[in-house]
């Protein structure tokens, strides 16, 4: 009975997350249109909400094919890996202090970092297995981007871990009497930039780069396999947003409203910043992206962690 309830709960969580990802696709189109002084999809249902459902149906009804020149096993496995790794990461994300699957797990943050490297594998293998040179270029970029931005991200997170003394997301939020964005402004900026790069969102969507690589790693994908990549991207964006809210913006702490509403509001605000970035910034050149990662963010992250450690040590002395 217990197992059955657990399975049901997992199914429900997954369905809700997939729904959120689908809705975000629509929300992004509307917000982008609003920012660019257009209307966006507004026909289907109130405010056009039905568009998300219509897109999902369209993708599901398309033929699911494997190109002749692709590596069949890896080509099929890659999109699933992307969606799976993003979904599983949510297991350690708490909605409230007492409402999560594994929010108290003592390696929660490390688990998310580990899953994000698996996520990049999905993108990479998909690009490689497509057997197309544009896809391969996208895959190479995805891997290089992963290596360059995982390091500053991990180092920025170390500052939070130092201050809270915990690797579980619950512990980190409980430790925030003052939101960590006040104590870690530099770490917050580094985490956000690295987060945008990790999820391959604009302006750092160089593995995809429609205008140069004709959609990069997913050039050869269609139908629901393409849909998995899409879901993975939006789930990854949601994950980074919810992490930002939990780690830097005080999580569920807030006056008047119940905690989980605060968390959702903060997450929504960060997601809006993601959309806003997309509407505002042009895509950098590839060497600029690498240069930013290695020559700016990494030294800054190292400086941040040293300063944090020093400040924490002095605080303890005083």
């Amino acid at each position, binding site marked *: 009975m217990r197992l059955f309830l657990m399975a049901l709960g997992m199914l429900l969580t997954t369905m809700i997350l997939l729904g959120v990802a689908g809705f975000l696709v629509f929300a992004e189109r509307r917000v982008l249109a609003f920012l660019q002084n257009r209307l966006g999809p507004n026909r289907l249902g109130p405010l056009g909400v039905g568009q998300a459902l219509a897109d999902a149906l369209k993708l599901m009804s398309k033929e699911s094919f494997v190109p002749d020149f*692709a590596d069949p096993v890896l080509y099929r496995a890659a999109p699933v890996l992307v969606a799976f790794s993003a979904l599983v990461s949510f297991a350690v994300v708490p909605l409230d202090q007492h409402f999560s699957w594994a929010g108290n797990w003592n*390696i929660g943050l490390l688990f998310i970092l*580990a899953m994000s490297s698996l996520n990049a594998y999905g993108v990479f*293998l998909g690009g490689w297995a497509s057997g197309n040179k544009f896809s391969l270029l996208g895959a190479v970029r995805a891997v290089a981007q992963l290596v360059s931005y995982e390091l500053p991200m991990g180092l920025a997170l170390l500052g939070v871990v130092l201050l809270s003394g915990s690797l579980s997301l619950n512990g980190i939020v409980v430790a925030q009497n003052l939101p960590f964005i006040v104590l870690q402004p530099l770490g917050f900026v580094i985490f956000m930039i690295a987060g945008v790069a990790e999820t391959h969102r604009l302006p750092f969507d160089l593995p995809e780069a429609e205008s140069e690589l004709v959609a990069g790693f997913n050039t050869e994908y269609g139908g629901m396999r393409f849909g998995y990549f899409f879901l993975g991207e939006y789930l990854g964006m949601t994950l980074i947003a919810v992490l930002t809210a939990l780690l830097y913006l005080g999580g569920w702490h807030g006056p008047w409203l119940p905690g989980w509403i605060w968390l959702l509001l903060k997450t929504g605000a960060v997601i809006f910043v993601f959309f806003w970035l997309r509407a505002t910034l042009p895509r950098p050149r590839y060497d600029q992206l690498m240069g930013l990662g290695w020559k700016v963010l990494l030294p800054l992250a190292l400086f941040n962690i040293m300063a944090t450690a020093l400040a924490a040590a002095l605080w303890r002395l005083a």
Partner: protein
Amino acid sequence: MMILLILLLLLIILMTGAALLVVRDPMHGAVNLGISLLALSILFLLLGAPFIAALEVMLYVGAILVLFLFAIMLLRSPLQVREEARWRRGFWWPAVLVVLLTVVLILLFSQRPDLQVMIQEIGPASVGRALFGPYLWLTEAVALLLFAVIAAVLAIHRRDAHDT
């Protein structure tokens, strides 16, 4: 139940290890290695070392294997059909080792059917305390070594005046 799971993971590790010897495409070899490392990480998790399990995925799958992939991609053109002997010379010794490991595994579990897995969970905090307590000098030595490696890489990669 636990022992079955552990056996399954060991089997996966052995099979992917053996598959590394027979696959033709280097990329398939890398994927097999990745699966083997993931299974190893779950094994660590089951045996009560969550910190090591997470590091296994982050460092080995997320960083070291990525370097292998880079090398494979930069050295070979994608997905071309290559005619290569299936039984290469480098095949035999690793194959013997895989067979030996399998035999040891079978012997181990058949000799001791009552084998109890004693699991004591070692969390990240105690790992940290050990690293910066009794093993502090060792940690510092490793750090120094890594620093030397970084310096060496920079020196090798330095552009001389005539290169530019």
